[in-house]
């Protein structure tokens, strides 16, 4: 298959699928509305030429994302180009066998337009609902992922571990498309063990790059890059890095700030702490004109090195659906075309392209 994308980097959006009231009206979308709007943002992302749509997974209110492969399977059928991913897939509380089955199936339906990001989930009460304990979070992520890898790579698996019933002569079906397992990113905000895990396997590492100062994010990414090289996967600058970011745009910077502020001030994650201005100064949150968002995003390369995937969060905290769709328009029409050009021009030729099913298949066939 020819390169479908401007393959120096992939750009897209990621959502956590939260339901929140619009502070102006006090009204929150219904679950039905929120699910359908999430689908519309994915379709819009494809329409404006973005490369990736990723959705989170939560099993508690106020989220509507308990069944990601159902939603992604629907989006697959309504799209033809965009790569679908997760942000994140809970490697702790899900059975790795079910992850192997669900995402291999999705991979077949999507003709390979699928990858995954593993995450632990940081909501303590969720773990016991699935028979787990958040204090085992790292151990669960390590053991479950080790099994998941084997299920996708070995036709018949005998396995025994601490957290799951043993497997004897088990074959996970369907087998991955073309025998190529989906590419895996490991996402973590602040657990060095997860950066280590990503490096050990030569998988991708994704930092959500929201909420925390860049100095912290840089330490996580530097650790991943250093250990990627240590484990023999290639030079540190060839490690596969993805970054998040949160943006809100209007033609005029002051309009963006004025519109975004009530959502920020009432947000369960941002509200009643550092001000919007302080947060924009201390973290990568970017609210302003498209040009300002371009400038901020180009700085990520200076902070973290050349990287492969940039996802923006544009739809949380009760932002009105129309405004969300307009954010995706800004990204597709004004921001991402410039970023592709600028990042592409700055990028040395030895930096790997973002992984796709086709690129992984080509490597496997060599």
């Amino acid at each position, binding site marked *: 298959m020819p390169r479908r994308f401007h393959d120096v980097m992939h750009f897209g959006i990621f959502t956590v699928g939260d339901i929140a009231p619009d502070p102006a009206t006090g009204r929150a979308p219904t679950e039905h509305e929120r699910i359908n709007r999430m689908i519309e943002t994915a379709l819009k992302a494809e329409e404006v030429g973005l490369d990736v749509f990723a959705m989170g997974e939560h099993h508690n209110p106020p989220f509507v994302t308990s069944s990601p492969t159902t939603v992604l399977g629907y989006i697959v059928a309504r799209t033809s180009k965009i790569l679908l991913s997760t942000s994140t897939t809970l490697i702790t509380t899900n059975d790795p066998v079910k992850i192997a089955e669900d995402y291999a199936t999705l991979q077949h339906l999507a003709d390979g337009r699928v990858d995954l990001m593993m995450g632990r989930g940081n909501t303590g009460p969720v773990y016991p609902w699935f028979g787990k304990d958040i204090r085992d979070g*790292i151990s669960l992520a390590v053991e479950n992922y080790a099994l998941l890898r084997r299920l996708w790579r070995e036709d018949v698996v005998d396995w025994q571990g601490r957290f799951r019933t043993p497997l004897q002569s088990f074959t996970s079906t369907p087998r991955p498309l073309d025998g190529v397992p989906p590419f895996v990113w490991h996402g973590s905000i602040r657990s*060095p063990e997860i950066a280590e895990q990503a490096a050990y396997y030569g998988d991708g590492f994704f930092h959500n790059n929201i909420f925390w100062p860049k100095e912290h994010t840089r330490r996580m990414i530097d650790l991943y890059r250093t250990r990627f090289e*240590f484990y023999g996967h290639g030079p540190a600058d060839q490690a596969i890095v993805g970054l998040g970011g949160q943006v809100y745009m209007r033609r005029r910077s002051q309009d963006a700030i004025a519109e975004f502020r009530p959502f920020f001030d009432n947000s369960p994650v941002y509200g009643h*702490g550092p001000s919007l201005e302080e947060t924009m100064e201390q973290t990568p949150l970017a609210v302003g004109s498209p040009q300002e968002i371009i400038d901020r995003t180009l700085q990520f390369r200076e902070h973290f090195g050349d990287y492969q995937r940039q996802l923006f969060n544009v739809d949380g905290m009760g932002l009105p659906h129309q405004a969300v769709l307009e954010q995706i328009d800004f990204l597709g029409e004004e921001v991402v075309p410039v970023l592709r050009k600028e990042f592409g021009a700055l990028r040395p030729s030895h930096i790997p392209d973002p992984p796709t099913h086709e690129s992984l298949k080509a490597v496997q066939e060599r």
Partner: protein
Amino acid sequence: MRRTIAVVSAGLGSPSSSRLLADRLSAAADREVRELGDEVEVRVIEVRDHAHDLVDNLVSGYPAADLKGALETVIGADGLIAVTPTFTASYSGLFKTFFDVLDLLDGDALADKPVLIGATGGTARHSLVLENTIRPLFTYLRGVVVPTSVFAAPEDWGGAAVPDLLAHRVDRAAAQLAGEIRRRDAPVARDPFEPTPFADLLGAG
């Protein structure tokens, strides 16, 4: 050897009696450490200067730059002098928040660190606040809290007290702190991003 003593003072007024006590404790500790043969630098942190940043840290999860500098001063210090006013029979909320976010930043921040605790209050009847609430806080954080704690009540500032019992306790506490500092190497900062070999993580499963 050059030592540093971090002084955390949680008084709100200016001048505050907590700061007055902190200054007396740090002056005595400075003298005692020098007498044992080390150089010493005292770094004072007024918790009030970081009031907003402390609350922001609880909400956002990360410290603003100024606060981070203050927390790192404590982490890197050879010894700690911590003084709080007594509010509703306990440490002040701001004082507690400072140590809450210190623990968030580095769970080993006070491990094996010599700590001298002091408190002020509106009446001497509060004096056991040091033993009942403040000492357990620092014990929990694995600090080495010296046996003598120093409470200063209004009458201690009156100047007419003879003999000067406060000065006597200050000197004894400072000598204990200096002795604990003396017997330790300088603290080595732990790097939270130090790699854990993946084989160890796999093995732990």
